[in-house]
């Protein structure tokens, strides 16, 4: 493992941002060290308490009886879908908005892709009385309407980003620009373990409550540590959250499941990758403030990624994950759109839990390679899939998936 004090993870990480932001980033680094690492003014205590009372932590670690039977091994689900807002995203959003408050900031901006981080930030901001603006690509706005409604209901401004493909990448660019303009009173609540130092480390620390709980829960429930922990990886915040406390447990396999999309190939002509498997097939580069693994063409232009799951649809990945993958500590794998959709239906019908399409990728890997995971497996269900119902119904229909129930109950309707 590399030393972390310089904001690097091996060669990855760093602070590649406009100078205008650097003082804010230094201020944030200082605040991170004082409040988050040293619990100054009881920050961590307040954070933990709000995560409990407001967020609903601890989330359960549930033995999935029917999956366990299906795969003939013990499968446990870490139920981040039960967190307030419906995804692990609140762990981070609440931490950062609270930190912004401790820092005396009086405005929050954030980017969002699937809308989960935007919703979590809007919730946290409403909870703590912070004005909040969310940048969101136009395409994402149109495919994630319920989350847009939720942000607005929490009285967050939603700023549509009309350039490029109108997805997460553009939203991050736009938020960076806002931050660069309003840096003095504004904190940028980044949504994953990406961006310049201290974000990757700070977001990981806020999210590592997942593995802190899960490690204790599995020891209590199964009497030992798991053989593997499986989590989906977009930017990698639920991944690092689920892995962090296990990194030192060398016998615990850590499996990061990326979105295989429709194929792992790349269309260089169009600048498109029909997947978002940056950890598996990306190349080192600098994006959004950090050196990490990216989907890019040989010139270094960033490719549009693609996944049926909006929350995984990102061309980069957190630098720490890139480092852990290079070191062999984390195993990057991927699951394609079809398998993720199947897994969505499987968990819904077998366990009575509708997983987020993001989380369905982790579950899809379990279906495809159970024997790679040992006898005792923890899968992180990073969020609930209510937000994905329309997409899943449409995509399942288009693909004629066997696992998908018919929706004809509406057909007789008005």
């Amino acid at each position, binding site marked *: 493992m590399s030393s972390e004090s310089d904001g690097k993870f091996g060669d990855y990480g760093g602070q*590649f941002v406009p100078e205008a932001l650097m*003082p804010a980033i230094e201020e944030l680094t200082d605040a991170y060290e004082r409040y988050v690492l040293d619990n100054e003014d009881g920050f961590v205590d307040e954070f933990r308490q709000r995560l409990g009372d407001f967020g609903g932590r601890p989330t359960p670690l549930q033995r999935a009886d029917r999956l366990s039977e299906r795969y003939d091994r013990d499968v446990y689900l870490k139920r981040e879908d039960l967190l307030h807002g419906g995804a692990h995203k609140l762990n981070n959003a609440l931490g950062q908005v609270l930190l912004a408050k401790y820092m005396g900031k009086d405005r929050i901006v954030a980017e969002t892709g699937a809308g989960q981080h935007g919703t979590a930030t809007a919730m946290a901001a409403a909870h703590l009385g912070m004005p909040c603006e969310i940048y969101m690509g136009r395409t994402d706005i149109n495919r994630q309407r319920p989350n847009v409604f939720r942000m607005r209901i929490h009285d967050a401004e939603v700023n549509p980003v009309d350039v490029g493909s109108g997805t997460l990448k553009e939203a991050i660019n736009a938020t960076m620009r806002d931050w660069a303009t309003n840096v003095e009173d504004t904190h940028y609540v980044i949504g994953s373990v990406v961006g310049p130092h201290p974000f990757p480390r700070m977001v990981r620390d806020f999210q590592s409550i997942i593995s802190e709980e899960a490690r204790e829960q599995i020891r209590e429930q199964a009497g030992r540590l798991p053989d593997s922990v499986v989590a989906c990886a977009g930017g990698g915040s639920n991944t690092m959250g689920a892995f962090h406390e296990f990194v030192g447990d060398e016998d615990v396999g850590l499996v990061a499941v990326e979105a295989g999309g429709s194929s792992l190939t790349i269309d260089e002509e169009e600048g498109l990758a029909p997947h978002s498997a940056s950890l598996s097939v990306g190349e080192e580069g600098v*994006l959004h403030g950090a050196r990490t693994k990216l989907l890019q063409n040989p010139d270094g232009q960033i490719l549009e990624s693609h996944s049926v799951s909006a929350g995984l649809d990102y061309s980069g990945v957190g630098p720490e994950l890139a480092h852990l993958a290079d070191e062999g500590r984390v195993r990057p794998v991927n699951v394609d759109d079809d398998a993720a959709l199947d897994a969505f239906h499987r968990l819904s019908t077998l366990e009575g839990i509708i997983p987020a399409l993001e989380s369905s990728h982790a579950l899809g890997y379990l279906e495809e390679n159970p024997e790679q995971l040992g006898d005792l497996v923890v899968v992180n269900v990073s969020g609930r899939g209510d937000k994905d119902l329309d997409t899943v119904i449409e995509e399942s229909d288009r693909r004629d998936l066997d696992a998908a129930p018919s929706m004809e109950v509406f057909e007789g309707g008005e």
Partner: protein
Amino acid sequence: MASEPDPATESDIEEAFADEPALVSYVAVGDPDAESTKEYVRALVRGGADVVELGLPFSEPIAEGPTIQQAIRRALDAGMTPDRYFDLVADLSGDVDVPLVCMTYYNLIYQYGESEAGPEPFVEAAAEAGISGLIVPDLPVDESGPLKEACEAHGLDLVFIVAPTTTDDRLDRMLDRATGFVYVQGRLGTTGTRTDVSSETHVSLDRLADTKLPKAVGFGISEREHAREIVAGGADGVVVGSAFVDIIAEQSSAGSQTQSDDVAEQKNVADRLEAKARELKEGALAGWNEVPEPEGK
């Protein structure tokens, strides 16, 4: 004003500021196509540009406002790549005799050439093509070690941007490494034309009063009056981008029908760019004349 340069080490960029306030002009290379860019650069120089920043388009231009974002998009859509960029620069550098500065984002620099080789191959290619310096808006001084080394090896200046938020401590670190000129970011935010000169500009210039390197102010300058005020306030030059890109954008959005239309339109744009450059240069000169002659000048 820039203090007396040391002739032995002074770069051609620094020289461009030596006698009078400099107009640093920016265009996105390849917007709307390579040929037009050359034409436009020549026009800017005719109008009085002392330094030309040639933007190498990157897909994620996080420091740019909407005007330059769109220019970059147009250039990428038209097929601009680093290799084509260097070809174009090589052509131009024979043509115009002002220093050419490459403005781009770090990932393109980092990826160029052999993998694992770092920024050196890019800097080498840039130097060969005739680039005099680099501006990399997403590379703060603390991450600039490897690039600085490569620049030194190949005789390129590395220009840093001083923001209104830059702390004294950071300023010292930057001035330690900076060569060519100091790019003073006139206001917070991204590039783009504005209607006034920010008070932050004056604060920044005051902080840099003792700096040996020339200081050029950018972000938001689009009119004669801005240029005048800024130079009168102590700057050695102005950096203007969006005001030029706006002129180019009007053409591309108009959309021409025939090739002869194209040529006529290109000429028209070139003329307007030249006029705009002249207006700004005149503004800068007017400001210069207002400045009380400093000691040592």
